[in-house]
């Protein structure tokens, strides 16, 4: 059985490693084969970008060689897929090679698209690429004061970034003794401060204590860099001295180019992760159109369920379990306190007040991640 995993991010890597351990005997006996195709030979710890943006992590701390993270027996190629032929069970890569498969899992992720809002890319900062995170730090490092506006697009990767970037920026300027020179205004697309109602209620109290003002039902339409205003689809206008964006995201271009899903999101069954119309094709992580958080933890828990199912297909010919919608997100509530939200399809989150110990666990997880990617945690 030839299993092809496309994408070497968190979802693809955990899937490959988990699967390789489950199929150790089959790999050794040449009854199964796991191949990973990725766009890069490096693996980035994306949640670390927030800390790079705040000057608390160096960019090189975010990377490991992808091959070093993979279990022996996984065939790895840094050769991105350009053509998916799901009806013919093969893909074609940038180097011109064809890879045939019996089972395929697509985990190509998502990308921020600030360029889709006129004026946004040129007049804002964000934390979604290494280049953007470095620009973010240089900008806040030189900022002399004024009105900081945080505005969020839809959909976006990591739903905790809007509160996290607000709280950590607040502490950044607090530590510099600049709170008398800056003000914060938080804009959010729906009628409360966060998509999770309990998180929204908690944020309101924290914002009140810090004097952070808010505007809800605010979806960015355009940014006028000359006048330093951001306008919303809802007809309002907000002035800023520094615009911090959580830009809208799309799936990867290769998904759209191959007509696998509008916006780059592949339609899948929310429990089995099967791509619509293809029994032997699956997608996970940000790549899917499932209406849940686009976050590393989503990819992680989906990968665990999918690994068990793919291994079962190899061993007994059928999948054995459902992905239950599990998501776990840390929420940094400043430079030294954090909380978390955990939920699934049936159980809403119930976040607790932030503590220093959860913050330090998050700091530890920034290193433990590499064990997670190897499928050990």
């Amino acid at each position, binding site marked *: 059985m030839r299993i092809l995993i496309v994408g070497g991010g968190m979802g693809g890597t955990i899937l490959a490693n988990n699967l390789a351990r489950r199929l150790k005997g089959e790999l050794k006996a040449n009854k199964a084969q796991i191949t990973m195709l990725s766009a890069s030979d490096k693996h980035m710890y994306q949640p670390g970008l927030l800390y790079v943006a705040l000057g608390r992590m160096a960019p090189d701390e975010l990377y490991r060689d992808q091959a070093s993270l993979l279990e022996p027996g996984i065939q790895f190629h840094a050769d991105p897929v350009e053509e998916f032929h799901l009806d013919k069970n093969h893909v074609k890569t940038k180097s011109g090679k064809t890879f045939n498969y019996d089972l395929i899992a697509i985990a190509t992720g998502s990308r921020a698209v600030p360029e889709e809002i006129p004026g946004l890319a040129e007049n804002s900062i964000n934390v979604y690429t290494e280049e953007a995170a470095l620009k973010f730090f240089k900008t806040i490092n030189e900022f002399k004061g004024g009105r900081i506006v945080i505005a969020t697009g*839809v*959909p976006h990767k990591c*739903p905790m970034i809007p509160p996290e970037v607000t709280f950590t920026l607040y502490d950044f300027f607090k530590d510099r003794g600049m709170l008398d020179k800056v003000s914060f205004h938080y804009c959010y*697309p*729906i*009628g409360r401060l966060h*998509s*999770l*109602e309990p998180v929204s209620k908690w944020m309101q109290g924290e914002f009140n204590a810090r004097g952070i003002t808010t505007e809800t*039902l605010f*979806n960015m339409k355009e940014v006028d860099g000359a006048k330093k205003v951001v306008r919303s*689809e*809802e*007809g309002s206008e907000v002035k800023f001295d520094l615009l911090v964006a959580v830009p*809208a995201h799309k799936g990867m271009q290769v998904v759209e180019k191959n007509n696998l899903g*509008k*916006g780059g999101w592949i339609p899948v069954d929310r429990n089995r992760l099967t791509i619509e119309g293809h029994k032997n094709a699956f997608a996970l992580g940000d790549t899917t159109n499932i*209406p*849940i*958080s686009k976050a590393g933890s989503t990819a992680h828990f989906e990968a665990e369920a999918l690994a068990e199912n793919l291994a079962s297909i190899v061993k007994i010919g059928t999948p054995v379990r459902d992905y239950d*919608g599990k*998501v776990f997100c840390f929420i940094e509530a400043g430079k030294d306190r954090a909380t978390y*939200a955990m*939920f699934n*399809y*049936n159980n*809403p*989150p119930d976040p607790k007040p932030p503590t220093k110990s959860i913050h330090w666990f998050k700091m530890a997880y920034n290193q433990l991640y590499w064990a997670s990617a190897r499928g050990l945690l």
Partner: protein
Amino acid sequence: MAEKKTIDARGTYCPGPLMELIAGMKMASVGDELEVLSTDEGSAKDIPEWINKVGHQVVSTTEANGTWHVVVRKMK
């Protein structure tokens, strides 16, 4: 030609039905109808609130067996 699309946000908490609709609206064409399925009663209020504020149209809001069906039309 206008299309009708369903956004099944039942049993999901984050990003939630309204956020899914906002994302869906971006990919829709003027005249398209989008039906949001939600198990959150709040959707019956917050989806029309946003739709009216931004200038789209609420076609219908109904409830059956614990699921809210909110149908909207993209107007601009």
